[in-house]
């Protein structure tokens, strides 16, 4: 069961990264901290997996890495590209659809309410 949830979380890593980068450019360690902070430590992506996700997204041109000096430190900041924004837009839609279609299974009452909602007919 543990493994199942771990894989579910792992599958969301790229979407989380793109969502964060849509807000502002960030560097690897910063992303790792933000993920933990925003999710209340629910998502703890190992940094190795985070960097490979970043490099994979960069390779596929969904994000772009640039070296910049800020606060006296040279860091590789990642920016979301137009291609990345499009992907994120599609991923969000797909995710919403997924939740929408999954919830009746998880809350069976909703199926009944949808099936027998006579009020909606009028």
């Amino acid at each position, binding site marked *: 069961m543990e493994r199942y949830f771990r894989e579910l979380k792992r599958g969301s890593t790229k979407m989380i990264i793109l969502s964060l980068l849509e807000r502002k450019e960030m560097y690897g360690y910063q992303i790792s901290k933000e993920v933990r902070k925003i999710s209340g430590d629910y998502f703890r992506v190992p*940094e190795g997996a985070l960097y490979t996700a970043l490099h994979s997204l960069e390779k596929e041109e969904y994000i772009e890495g640039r070296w910049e000096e800020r606060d006296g430190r040279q860091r590789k900041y990642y920016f979301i590209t137009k291609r990345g924004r499009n992907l994120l837009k599609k991923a969000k839609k797909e995710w919403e659809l997924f939740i929408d279609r999954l919830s009746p299974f998880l809350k069976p009452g909703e199926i009944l309410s949808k099936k027998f909602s006579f009020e909606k007919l009028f």
Partner: protein
Amino acid sequence: MGDGIKNFIEGILKELDIDDEKKKDLEKELMENFEEEKDELLKMGIKEEEAERRILERFGDQEKFKRRLLFIHGFGRFSDNSFKNGIFSSIPVFLGTLLILLYSTFHLLGFTIEIPNIISTLLFGLSLLISIFAFSKGFPAWSFPWAGITFVYLAQIFLFFSSISKLYLIPAIIFSLLFLLSIYTIFKLSNFKKGLGLTLLFILSLSIPFAFYGSDEMVLKYKILFQITIGLFATLFTFLLLYFRLRLSYLLSVLGFILYTFSYLYIILSPHTFAGGENILYLFLGYSIPILLLISIPFYFFLRERVSD
């Protein structure tokens, strides 16, 4: 930065067959981030050793990271050095096809059977050397067909038996069945078995044409034993490589071999006498179409990338 982290990063970069520039970039990125993380932990009053231990723990499995990076940046990808990949991956298949052509026409050219045998042995030696060299370089995509050529000799075990029984179609049928089983394995089963299936496919698709030579006296007992030993070692190496580093691009490489194989099956099932050079149309279709496809497939990907750049 402490020795623990330095060693950790060096461990990652060592034997990581990606561009030097990417390697330096990665080293710098990891170093910078680890330093910042360490500074934060030190400020929290955590001792240096403990801070490094935590950083490495958070990072996760070093080997897994290396393997994933290889998947992304190097190994089996056409996007890096596409031109080189296109050319280098076409050459061994082209040479192999020329060799087969030579076997079928040597008597017309006034040669004895020794000439194609010598060239075949040289090609085998060259392929083996290139494969070993490529292995030391992390086995890039272009070297995949070179390794395949080294496996051709494995097929001779079947030829040896077929030359005794004189039932020349038997090895071809066995190869074909195993070939179909390999395709089924690749698409239906788990990753582990995908590796096995691809390896089989890789070996068998190249081996099928050699079922033709059952009637030749080129099959010598000791030579075959030697070749089987090398073939089995090479099989094991490729299996391990495919298992750990399988990528979609390999499937594209294998697509070439599938077409190659079907063309030869067509020749096997067609009514012609191989050594007699009869039915030139079958030979032409059997040789020229696979050659064109095998050369054009890598170039297609090369051109597609250039256009999209």
